């Protein structure tokens, strides 16, 4: 075992996969000489050269399309979006080309799109967004969003080895703040499997990304108030691990969903719907969503602090739900 940070876990996964399989390569803006805006690929260019670590022109659609073409030829490209916000420039290539190739004509498209997402870094509306719901509505894609170094490493390896397009959402707030002891051997975290990060009996909170840590902190404080909250980390958003969601709700009979993305049409809306459709008889109270409000991400610290769901928001919601 060794202790590594969330960002180191991502770098290690990439490095090990590139060493394991010569078809794996990286492309994106400033990923080469500079080592990536967040330094995820620092040293890669020196080790693998300019044809496996490609600095691309500023053209998200163009290089995502290029990744798709290379994938169709048997390569395993990993695209880096400098910020998840810029993924919108490649929207068409992702949802119409990558996501539909296999269904339409059998063209398996194993690409990974890494996208640093999320706020709390004073990045304003174009460096803080959570774009998962834009892609959640698109069959053919897989979406993962790890919260811990172990999951970050294992999910990235799984994504690279997967035969389908995977959007890998890495939360930039966690990069250097979160550390964990992880095994030194090769391992993967299977896509499509949620993980209970804290067991509890009274309430289930379903969450992912940086909000897992908010939920865990809240759970600690709630324990003092006599509320035992289970924290279910989705890890994979698409496809959702229904089994894990249902079995937790069956146990606690109370469900909350917490995400940093905005509320309307978000992941939480879908999770609430499937619980209500299939687990209605097990519910003792309403399904509660704790999310950002329906606005762009504001810049100024007081506004951003207001915007991103906080521990106190979770506690308030949990107390309300516990009363049922």
């Amino acid at each position, binding site marked *: 075992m060794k202790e590594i940070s969330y960002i180191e876990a991502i770098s290690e996964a990439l490095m090990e996969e590139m060493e394991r399989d010569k078809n794996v*390569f990286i492309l994106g803006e400033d990923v080469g000489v500079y080592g990536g805006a967040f330094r995820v690929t620092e040293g890669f260019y020196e080790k693998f050269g300019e*044809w*496996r670590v*490609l600095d*691309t*022109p500023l*053209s998200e*659609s*163009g*290089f*995502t*399309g*290029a*990744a*798709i*073409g*290379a*994938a*169709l*030829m*048997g*390569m395993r*490209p990993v695209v880096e979006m400098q910020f998840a916000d810029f993924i919108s420039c490649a929207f*068409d*290539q992702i949802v*119409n*080309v990558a996501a*539909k*190739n*296999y*269904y*339409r*004509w*059998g*063209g*398996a498209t194993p690409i990974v799109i890494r996208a640093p997402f999320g706020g709390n870094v004073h990045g304003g509306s174009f460096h803080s967004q959570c774009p998962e719901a834009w892609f959640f509505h698109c*069959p*053919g894609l*897989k979406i993962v969003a790890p919260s811990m170094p172990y999951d970050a490493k294992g999910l990235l390896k799984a994504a690279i080895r997967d*035969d*389908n397009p995977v959007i890998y959402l890495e939360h930039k707030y966690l990069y250097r703040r979160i550390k964990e002891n992880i095994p030194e051997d090769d391992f993967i975290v299977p896509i499509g499997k949620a993980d209970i990060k804290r067991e509890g009996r009274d309430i289930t909170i379903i969450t992912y990304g940086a909000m897992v840590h908010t939920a865990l902190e809240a759970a600690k404080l709630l324990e003092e108030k006599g509320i035992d909250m289970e924290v279910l980390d989705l890890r994979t958003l698409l496809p959702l691990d229904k089994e894990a969601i249902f079995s937790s709700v069956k146990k606690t009979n109370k469900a909350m969903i917490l995400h940093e993305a905005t509320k309307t049409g978000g992941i939480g809306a879908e999770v609430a719907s499937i619980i209500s459709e299939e687990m209605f008889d097990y519910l003792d109270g309403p399904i509660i969503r704790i999310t950002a409000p329906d606005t762009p991400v504001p810049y100024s610290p007081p506004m951003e602090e207001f915007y991103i769901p906080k521990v106190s928001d979770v506690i308030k919601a949990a107390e309300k739900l516990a009363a049922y």
Partner: protein
Amino acid sequence: MAEISKDVMTDIYYWLKLTRTIEDRVTILYRQGKIQGGAWTSHGMEAISVGYAFALDKDDIICPYFRDMGAFLVRGVTPKRIFAQYLGRKTGVTGGKEGNVHVGDLSLGIIGFPSHLTDNYPVATGVALSFKMRGEKRVVAACTGDGGTSRGDFHEAMNFASVRKLPVVFFCNNNQYAYSTPLRFQMAIKDVSQRAIAYGIPGETIDGNDILSVYSAAKRAYQRARDGEGPSFIECKTMRMHGHSEFDAAKYVPKELLEEWKKKDPVINYEKYLTEKKIVTSEKLAEIDKRIKSEIEEAVEFAEKSPYPEGKDALEGVYKV
């Protein structure tokens, strides 16, 4: 221009005529209500896709667009699979998941066509990138329309291909109309190939109705790509001789323009060229026509007798498991 053998010229005639005859039949099937949705053909523009595909080697790849029936045929999609595809049958190229030439088949080196024109240009750069990374001497041909060159993906792909000197040849079928929009509302330049200058890519404008010009220009550009000299752009000037699709009467196209281009029909003129130059006898051509006719009859019969997929087959194949 290198000498083109009599056999090659005869083969080209077969593909050109097969493309024309298949699409004529597609039009009839559409009017009979047997083809649902829409039907888009390359009538009057067949020389472009036959030419660029015929000039490729077997291991090369194409990223075609929707007026490239000829390319699909030349690469080896059989008329049986084509008609079954148009009729939405299980035996079609996509088993009914898609219609028309919205198909791909990697075993034949064909990457599927998305309706969002020029989406396949960036995809083609990635195909070429993989060849270059692996040191393979293969090339990729991508095609789009004149309207498609106004999209951002055109720019992003041309730029990236040039920066990395990728073995890709970009074709543009300039048929002068993007649906109903004439070129003058699409761009303020005389030739689409002028766009290539900005990327440092050699751009060429050729007569898209002259199959031998297309074939020769494609051959030259492919050789250049194989030699490591990078991408080329070839604008094939032609004219869309019908509506955007079968349901478009195209009243916005001046009659005189169509009259003028009718004289430049790529199939009729090539036929004339072959017989007048005594390269192939008219008897031989008639024989080929007969063979095409029977192939098509057989293919249509096969398609009409083929089963439809079941409704629930729609649930299959969203993910590769």
